[in-house]
């Protein structure tokens, strides 16, 4: 295990005291340390939102992009440089709202990235509007009479699209969360970790207490088999008195996207030298034009 201090950033988090994002940050560091991934070997790509500030607060490569676009940037980085561990960090608005289309397609592509969603069921950074995961009836500044739509179910969405790794964590349980992150990082392919992250300012419904009374760890259920899609589907819809956390589903042996791209057989284009075309290569190109 590497020293946790290795990941200490010069920048102090600006999150509100008690914000669930602290637990996520600590758990991420723990997972990297446990897996002995050095700061220069990992790239965090985030969007915009409270949680998306995370790359600034960890000593590692980081790219904070624009709202909703972490996933395609992360996938581009991974395909160009498969040697890097690439972690996309988004909020629920960021990942399931504005970036919803990217979410859908990242899943089915199965590029080897880890996707952490800080799911606080509200928009934090823009001060408390409802989010795609807010419950029907959720009252916010833009839904004063309560949200009319049903909430997005990210876990079911991921499963339905063929995700090969689907997990849910709780930022109030950072040790467990760290183990989920570590498993996600090790998983070859797209790995979603949706994290229940209390926003202590704007979400008075889904608080630490709310979750502490409800969450249970799937791995403590002896009957649960994370390789069984039917069980996973069922637990993905469990939300109420009991909320499962842990690895809902993992499918092994599915090739990653990059394993199937012949152009990547000798590494990504960012890792290879950039020599001029050879005489034979030019001739071959020109021969097509005669």
């Amino acid at each position, binding site marked *: 295990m590497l020293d946790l201090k290795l990941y200490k950033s010069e920048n102090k988090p600006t999150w509100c005291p008690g914000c669930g994002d602290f637990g996520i940050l600590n758990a991420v560091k723990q997972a990297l340390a446990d897996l002995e991934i050095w700061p220069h070997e990992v790239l965090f790509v985030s969007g915009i939102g409270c949680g998306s500030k995370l790359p600034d607060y960890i000593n590692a490569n980081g790219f904070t992009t624009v709202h909703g676009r972490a996933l395609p940037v992360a996938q581009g980085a991974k395909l160009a440089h498969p*040697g890097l561990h690439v972690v996309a960090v988004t909020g629920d608005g960021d990942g399931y709202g504005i970036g919803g*289309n990217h979410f859908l397609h990242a899943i089915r592509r199965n590029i080897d990235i880890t996707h952490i969603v800080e799911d606080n069921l509200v928009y934090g950074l823009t001060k408390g509007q409802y989010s795609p995961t807010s419950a029907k009836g959720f009252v916010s500044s833009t839904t004063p009479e309560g949200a009319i739509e049903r909430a997005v179910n990210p876990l079911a969405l991921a499963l339905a699209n063929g995700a090969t790794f689907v997990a849910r964590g709780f930022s109030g349980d950072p040790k467990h969360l760290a183990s989920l992150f570590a498993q996600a990082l090790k998983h070859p392919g797209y790995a979603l970790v949706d994290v229940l992250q209390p926003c202590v300012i704007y979400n008075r419904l889904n608080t630490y207490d709310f979750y502490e009374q409800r969450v249970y760890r799937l791995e403590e259920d002896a009957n649960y088999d994370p390789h069984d899609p039917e069980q996973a589907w069922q637990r993905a819809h469990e939300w109420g008195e009991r909320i499962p956390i842990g690895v809902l589903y993992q499918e092994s042996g599915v090739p990653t996207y990059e394993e199937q791209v012949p152009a*990547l057989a*000798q590494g990504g284009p960012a890792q290879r030298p950039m020599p001029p075309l050879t005489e034979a*290569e030019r001739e071959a190109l020109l021969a097509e034009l005669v």
Partner: protein
Amino acid sequence: MAVHELSIKLAGEAGQGVESNGAGFARAAARAGLYVYTASDYMSRIRGGHNSYLLRISDQKARVHRDSVHLLLAFNPHAITAHLHEVVPGGAIIVDEGMRIPEDPVKAAGLQLFPLPLKDLAERVGGSKIMLNTAALGATAAVTGFDLAYVEGVIRDNFGSKKGAAVAEANLKVARAAYELAGDRYGRRFPWKLHAVEDAPRRYLLNGNQALAMGALAGGCRFISAYPMTPASSIFEWLTAHAQRFNVVSKQMEDEIAAVTMAIGAAYVGARAMTATSGGGFSLMVEALGLAGMAEVPLVVVDAQRPGPSTGMPTRSDQGDLLFVTHASQGEFPRLILAPGNVRQCFEAGYRAFNLAERYQTPVIVLTNGFLASSLETVDAQDLPFDEVRIDRGELLDAAALDGLEEPYARFRVTESGVSPRALPGHPKAVYTTPSDEHTEYGAFESEDVANRLQQQPKRMRKLEAARAEMNGPSLYGPGEADVTLVGWGSTLGALQEAVDELNRSRPGSANLLHFTDLWPFPASAEGALARARQLVVVEENQTGQFARLLRAETGRRPDHLITRIDGRAMTPDYILENLKEVALHVGSQAV
């Protein structure tokens, strides 16, 4: 007018093989040592609609197509009605005998009609009426006196590998039968002839999109992520077709936002990455363009313009995105814009864009359009200058330089040039963050500190100073001194050059041309060239004179006249000359 020169137009419905046959004949002519320029005109339909394909063939360099046609191959009656007026007196129309045609207007226009049993021949000799196209090609060769061997070669290549020898053989028989019949009947009646040029040097036939993609590949591009949009798709398709051989990562994404941001991710970690789209797709990419500006990521975006607004005229051509791309995205950041004007310049833009993007660590936009994208041009070997390709990655710190770093690495170090030495993620001594927010030299974000902002924002913008000095000024074509100086940019180059030639042929010294390929930052050297011009006539394919406005804003020089074209059809010398007459009538009144 060149000694041996003629224009052939094929016209009919989508699905009748207008484009493929036109391109086939173009290839045959190029192989015979002739110069070719083609222009395709088609609607956004897979079947039906009206399509035409124009080939200008000459033993002199053809830089653009012309409006007049000598031989029309009409695949349906509408093709005659639509194009009759383009055929020159004495010109001819080849039609299938079985087709009902309006004979009177043809005669009234002084044109010859060459009916031939094309469909019958196809069925009788080849066994299928699909080969009517092949029969038409054979007939074309016959009336123009062109050596059928070249057409046969193209037929063999086209069918041989794909559909097998039997199909090729049947087509060859049809071509020969049509060649003989048409030659006997009409060979002596058609005055324009195509003669193969003996010992012509090796030449190449390609369009601007192919050239741009090839230039990019030669320049080290190994990553393209895109979303299909006419007329940019063939850039993406060309690189994809060559992906396996050249280890190019090519990815069709879910939308343009994903396409451009994926390219940003790839460029960020060090690949030469690009995306290609048209105006609508570019609109979606706008926020990400600013991200590349703020994050100082070398990104290359091609905008192959088509007429807007909105979905506009998908298969047509235009130059209406200029001011949009120069200003797109919130705030201010350095960007570079190149607008190649022909195949050679497309090739050059392909690799130059990457060198500029990496040297200035900022996005580069290449503005092409539907016309450049689809027009085939024969070029000489030196017009695909692989030998001139240099891969200049700018201030990129290699592993050895990073190993020796004494201080913590500052990705956004404030420098005089504005360019900060760049390290790619992955080295232990260069662990850094890049925010899309304003940031410090070390990439820490939320640095809204006044002093920091006053360093970082000007640092980025300073890149424009060196770039402005480095941008190529306009190329001068024609005499150094002239009564009228035409000014154009991008795809209208060939049309402008030929217009200038024609003007000077009738009256030497009457016109010259300043053509811009480097548009932004506006080249510093432009002012001198413009100062020598007496009367400036800006020619462009948009309604408001966007380049004229840019010119005025950047140099203070007010163009005297503006010639615009907004019908989605490409600029031709004939159009320019016609409109210049108008200009001469209104000297001084058409202010820009």
